């Protein structure tokens, strides 16, 4: 029986909303400003889930239902207000908004920094650089600053960098949102390859069809909660 590689128990996350406290230090020092927050928005509400080794879970729901926040909590980018996240494997993540690449650095330099930030040795990064460039189809732009790449190329490069890092768990937030049809096919193939290698994954996407093709389970989210679970026919 596959072992648990990730376990979330009752995790919740809220953000301040409504009328905010003053952003200025001068107001706190010179005026008697109200210090308590007037309202908070619950982005993730008492979510529990378990990811087995080799399992892929998809998250589906409307914008603002808490999918990306949940992924960021699992990735360790955000801290949960309540609950525990137990990770029994290393993580590589891809967020649609960017991959932590510097606008003025070249593709190869960004790949190098990305690898270092994931704890890789320079020799490991050098060994995978050409493969990442080839996979992303950005060879013609390899020596140009990142800002000179189109949005699609940037996303492809970021995606390629994320999937080339050998990890047990992969997190993808709307990986297919920016790429063209050809790249979407390449992405799908890569997911299937990772799955075949026994890796685990969590995918956030707005296409139920795509999630059904890749994932063993699809969790539907609404108002920060998991409201339904669909199992893939093959699982």
């Amino acid at each position, binding site marked *: 029986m596959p072992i648990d590689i990730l376990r979330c128990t009752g995790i919740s996350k809220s953000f301040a909303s409504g009328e905010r406290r003053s952003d200025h*230090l001068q107001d*706190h020092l010179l005026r008697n400003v109200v210090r308590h927050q007037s309202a908070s928005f619950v982005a993730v509400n008492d979510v529990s889930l378990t990811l087995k080794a080799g399992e892929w879970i998809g998250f589906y729901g409307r914008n603002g239902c808490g999918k990306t926040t949940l992924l960021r909590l699992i990735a360790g980018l955000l801290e949960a207000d309540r609950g525990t996240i137990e990770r029994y494997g*290393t993580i590589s993540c891809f967020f649609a908004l960017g991959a*932590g*690449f510097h*606008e003025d650095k070249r593709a190869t330099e960004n790949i190098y920094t990305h690898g*270092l930030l*994931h*704890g890789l040795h320079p020799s490991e990064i050098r060994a995978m650089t050409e493969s990442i460039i080839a996979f992303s189809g950005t060879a013609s732009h390899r020596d140009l600053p990142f800002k000179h790449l189109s949005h699609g190329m940037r996303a492809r490069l970021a995606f390629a960098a994320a999937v080339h890092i050998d990890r047990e768990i992969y997190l993808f937030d709307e990986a297919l949102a920016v790429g063209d049809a050809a790249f979407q096919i390449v992405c799908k193939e890569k997911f299937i390859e990772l799955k075949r290698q026994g890796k685990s994954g969590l995918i956030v996407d707005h296409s139920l069809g795509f999630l059904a093709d890749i994932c063993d389970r699809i969790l539907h989210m609404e108002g920060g909660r998991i409201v339904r679970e669909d199992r893939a026919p093959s699982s």
Partner: protein
Amino acid sequence: MEVIQRQFTLRQAVRVVLSLGWSDFSLKYRGSFLGYFWSFSVPITRFLVIFFVFQPFIGSDIHEYRLYLFLGVILWEYFSVATSACLALPGDKSFIIRNVCFPRILLLLSIGWCHFLIFLTYTLIFLLLAALSGTPLLQGVLYLPVLFLQMMCLTVGIGGGLGAFSLRYKDIQHLWDVLLTILFWMTPIMYPYLVEAPTAHELLFLPSKLFPLSIHSFLAAFVRFQPLSILLYDARRALIYGAAPSLLHIIGFSLFCLMIAILGIGLFRRRSRFFLEEY
């Protein structure tokens, strides 16, 4: 038990700090005609302006005034630019902070390293000027590692403390600019630093010096004991006048700088967990 990511070893952390710092350093002037030499424009202009304005009034009271002033200017330049860069870090590096999970503290240290590289080149120019003016440099050069360590600790500590709150309070950059303007004139960069006795000894008699309370006595005490003044005084003693501070003084002041660094870095580390929510 919670297992978080692949833990960074010390070697990996050092690699990240050196690499990020170096890439910031090299990106700063990439593609510009003057390249790195452009970075000299600010301290050299500041030095020349102050020199020609103040030299007629106090130049004769201070031995080797050119070197005295140049050392003051480059140390100030390092402190002001590096602390401001640390303060701006959460904004400037948001593209990494938002997307990659790793110890944020490495970003702060990389800023310290990047600006240290810049300061190193300023120091080389200073040493060249000192050699040309016939100043004996051996003892001064031996003191350099102590100066670098104290300077880095002080700068990263203060910068880290400021950076920790820069997203929470949007006007910190503005307030820090105001404070830097005040601090510039409250640091003996271009005027003499009055020392009557060793720092520890003078500190013991500080209360008696402050009374009767007046703005003048307060400002005089501030200029005498603020850390930048002490750092500058020690650096000038060692590098220009060939009289390094006592071992006790070096240890005491180094521990003070280290304490500032620990506080600032600790604060940054603690607060950096909430950066993503504060964007």
